[in-house]
């Protein structure tokens, strides 16, 4: 029914319009062609003159209306160190083009008004003027040169990569349909390599865990997670894509670069203002106490007048600016620029992706063995302990617990990872040929005391056998199974019992 009415309306309007046309055509015929044309000329000329004023006024009025969205003005200042340069260039270009825009429009519409056709007017025969033409070729050429030089100067500075020794933080952004995945280097300060064929549902970036640098990398992929950046530090973003083109776009930083599968790109920038400071700017008040930018004082949630104000909820936003499919418009991440100290604290709290999601799973290439870094750490630990023990005079201080020597439950079979600690012990004994030791096994108090004695004895013997196999002389080692007779913690708690199940060695002579 509505469709029918719509069609009827269209038909009616068409008829009316055609009738208007017909009537005016008849009127023209009655009045005579020339009179009608002259009248039309007057109408159009006046319209153009009126349009000139209204148009130029509207252009300026619109700039006033949208002033808070203008680059480098009011609340829309750049939040990166290179940003103001670009804003300045924009405004410089706006200045020059604005002059041209106004002058040409004044001439265009003024001439249209002034030289409207009249019966008594004679058109000027003015086919060319070389001097004029040279002038208006030269002037744009000079202005263009100015803008090109300024533009390229800024461009080459902004787009330059970091120098080989330049201090900076490198992070990585990967565009996927339809989200951004961020990766930060861990304590080593370097991002590890990745390869798209390594990608699995868990390892969504395809990190190569054989590359040590990957092991401490931190990944943040949830849309709600804040991306923290330190103020005043140079950031180099490595920009990659997993499936189709994306574009890493942070309008407030004046940062934009395509993300391309198979072709990593980068953008280097330095955040220059913290989120907190930016919020303060947005929420600032005039001298008379009224808000400088009232639109930022509106409630963040329009439905809930009690909610925080917009400026209080402000974050910098990361968007996608290259069409990547139907969810293109939704790839939002929020960015929080904080002080360097706060950023470091935050980074310390972040967990390595490898350790939280990969370590020990089937995808872990290091499953069943220690990482080099862990081996090194344990060795250092062990060495400090024995040095302390060697220096000690009290017998009780010459006992060293082998924290990383473990047995399978209820048996005396060493776990695979125990060998690292035992190797440390072997190296120690090898280096200090005068040392003799007592190898001791301990259990908790669960089960029969006799059985515990046997188990602890078997376990101490397993250590003994391992060292013997490695070539330690048998007379340098004695073996004792203490069972549950020497607890170091209470056996009433699980933690205590855990502590009591242990393997130790005591330096007897040195």
């Amino acid at each position, binding site marked *: 029914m509505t469709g029918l009415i719509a069609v009827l309306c269209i038909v009616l309007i068409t008829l009316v319009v055609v009738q208007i046309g017909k009537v005016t055509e008849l009127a023209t015929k009655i009045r005579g062609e020339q009179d009608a044309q002259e009248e039309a000329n007057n109408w159009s000329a006046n319209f153009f003159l009126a349009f000139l004023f209204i148009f130029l006024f509207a252009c300026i009025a619109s700039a006033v209306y949208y002033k808070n969205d203008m680059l480098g003005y009011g609340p829309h200042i750049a939040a990166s160190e290179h940003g103001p340069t670009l804003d300045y260039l924009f405004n410089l270009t706006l200045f020059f083009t604005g002059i041209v825009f106004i002058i040409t429009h004044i001439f265009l519409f003024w001439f249209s008004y002034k030289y409207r056709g009249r019966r008594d007017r004679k058109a000027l025969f003015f086919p060319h003027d070389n001097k004029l033409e040279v002038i208006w070729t030269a002037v744009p050429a000079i202005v263009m040169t100015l803008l090109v030089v300024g533009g390229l100067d800024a461009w080459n500075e902004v787009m330059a990569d970091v120098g080989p020794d330049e201090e900076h933080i490198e992070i990585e952004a990967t565009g996927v349909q339809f989200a951004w995945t961020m990766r930060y280097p861990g304590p080593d300060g370097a991002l590890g390599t990745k390869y798209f064929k390594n990608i699995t549902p868990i390892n969504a970036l395809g990190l190569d865990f054989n590359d040590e640098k990957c092991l401490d990398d931190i990944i943040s992929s949830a849309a709600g997670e804040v991306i923290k950046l330190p103020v005043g530090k140079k950031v180099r973003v490595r920009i990659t894509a997993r499936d189709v083109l994306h574009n890493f776009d942070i309008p407030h930083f004046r940062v934009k670069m395509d993300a391309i599968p198979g072709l990593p790109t980068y953008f280097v920038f330095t955040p220059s203002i913290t989120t907190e400071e930016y919020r303060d700017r947005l929420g600032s008040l005039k001298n008379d106490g009224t808000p400088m930018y009232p639109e930022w004082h509106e409630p963040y949630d329009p439905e809930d007048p009690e909610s925080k104000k917009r400026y209080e909820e402000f*974050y910098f936003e990361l968007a996608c600016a290259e069409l990547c499919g*139907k969810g293109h418009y939704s790839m939002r991440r929020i960015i929080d620029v904080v002080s360097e100290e706060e950023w470091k604290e935050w980074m310390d709290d972040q967990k390595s992706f490898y350790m939280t999601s990969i370590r020990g799973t089937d995808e872990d290439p290091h499953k069943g063995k220690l990482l080099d870094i862990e081996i090194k750490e344990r060795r250092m630990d062990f060495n400090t302990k024995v040095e302390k023990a060697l220096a000690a005079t009290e017998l009780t201080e010459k006992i060293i617990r082998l924290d990383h020597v473990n047995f399978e439950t209820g048996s005396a079979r060493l776990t695979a990872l125990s060998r690292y600690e035992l190797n440390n012990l072997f190296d120690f004994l090898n280096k200090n040929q005068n040392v003799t030791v007592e190898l001791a096994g301990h259990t908790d108090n669960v089960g029969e005391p006799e059985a515990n004695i046997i188990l602890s004895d078997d376990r101490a013997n397993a250590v003994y056998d391992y060292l013997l196999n490695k070539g330690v002389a048998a007379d340098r080692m004695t073996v004792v199974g203490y069972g549950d007779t020497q607890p170091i913690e209470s056996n009433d708690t699980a933690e205590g019992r855990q502590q009591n199940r242990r393997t130790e060695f005591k330096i007897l002579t040195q």
Partner: protein
Amino acid sequence: MASDLVTTTYDPDLLIEEQGYDDHFHDHHHGDKYQSNFITHYVFSQDHKIIAKQFLITGIFWAIIGAGMSIIFRLQLGFPEESLAWIKPLLGKWITVNEAGIGTLDPQFYYALVTMHGTILVFFVLTAGLSGTFSNLLIPLQVGARDMASPLLNMMSYWFFFLAGVVMFASLFLSTGPFSGGWTAYPPLSVLPQASSGSAAGMTLWTVSLVLFVVSVLLGGINYITTVLNLRTKGMTMWRMPLTIWAFFITAIIGLLSFPVLASAFFLVIFDRELGTSFFLSDIYIGGEALDRVGGSPVLFQHLFWFLGHPEVYIIILPAMGLVSEVLSVHARKPIFGYKAMVYSILAIAFLSFIVWAHHMFMAGVNPFISNIFVIFTLIIAVPSAVKVFNWITTLYGGNIRFNSAMLFAIGFVSMFISGGLTGIFLGNSAIDIQMHDTYFVVAHFHIVMGIAAFFGMFAGIYNWFPKMYGRFMNETLGKIHFWGTFIGAYLIFWPMHYLGMAGVPRRYYSFETFDAFAHFDGTNKFITIAAIVVFALQLLFVVNFFYSIWKGKRMTTRNPWGATTLEWTTPIDTGHGNWPGKIPVVHRWAYDYGKDGREFIPQILPVSEDESESH
């Protein structure tokens, strides 16, 4: 007109009979067996004038569809909360109606609409509909030829375009939807059906359609070039050609050099899609698997695409510039100012158009150093463009301007070209482009400078040469309503978009609600949508005027109603196949002798008299 102005009196038939060149036309074409029945006259016609009308009416058909699509996606952007359930009968499953009866546009189809809007407008309307129409209509008529060099190829050019249209139209009805990866069709999105359902059968039909379209452009272009070079009548030297012909001629050359590159890019896309090659693919993990397609580069496609894509904007705007130059001169009753400078500007723009393509790719991951060169060449284009603008304005100076719809649109064109051209200076400067790239600032820029401006050139052409096409005038009152509404409306649509761009609002967003920085333009977006609907309605008014005037418009009573100097107005009102019934006219002067020596205008066919001042 004026009492002291000599209105030249001449009888073109007599003049051509006396002075004209006898090419024995009648010996060959007696009875005109090629145009004898309805099919050969109106459908498979080889007459350039009929083919021009075919291009124009097909262009109008596509313009309505393409602009209609923009209204639908503007409704989504301006009124995201409103129900679109009423449009479900048209769009079917692409409108999802929830339990409350609120219909929302599917994002997938939103992107399909955006893509189709761009493709249709750029290729089918502003290339075929504009250049196709007026190159066909005016080249033979204005250079004094009986027809195109090859009427058969000319006919085939239209029918390849028609076929391209049929394929594209069919793609609108696919269950997976039409192609939705943007008119630029960047891979990998356009190559991988896993990435977007529009990249399935929709993209196949899209590429097939556009390859057919390239064939059409090339057949037409070869013809235009050959005709201009070889079929100019006696006396019509290159420097006497009207600027329209210069524009069509150079446009055809640009098209001939650049469209094959686009075709090659499309062939490589087809290979990547259908044969498993990897020209544009590398290191991709999608749909749960890592593809075995490595070694290609998505950026390579962008180079190939923009090697056409940038010249393409001049393929669109140069014919409009030519039409506007001619219309401004005729209706200001003055010679175009700086004719030679105008020609050299066209040549300079055409040359530069081939070495600026990467300014679309400043942020695409190409080496920043390369951008330096493209910035320089891009901003140099501003110089010939500025020369053209100043010359148009000076053409008005001291004129005796006859304001009719054609002239209004020509002046409107100059305004649009200034407004849109100046924003190009921002975008061509790579440093500023960092912030502006792919934002609404770009949308505003290219819509004004090559969308609206090109349309204005086309409208100026249609209103001006409608009498030549149909022997009747279009209605002036409706034409003026059409102009003022569109002129003001177009600014209302696109001006605010500059501010969205400054705020960094990216283009091709289905919704702005996700981002705090983009969400506060809801009022502006509503405003833009309302303006777009009004402007769209005004274009329907133009269509009504157009078809009404074909049959019911005011009849043409004299053969040269505008007092123009060019040859098309020396043909009979009802111009037959072969254009001139007897001999073909011989040309004695350039096309711009208006107001010279106190004479209102001197047609090109009039010999130079002894007492005349310097002539061209």
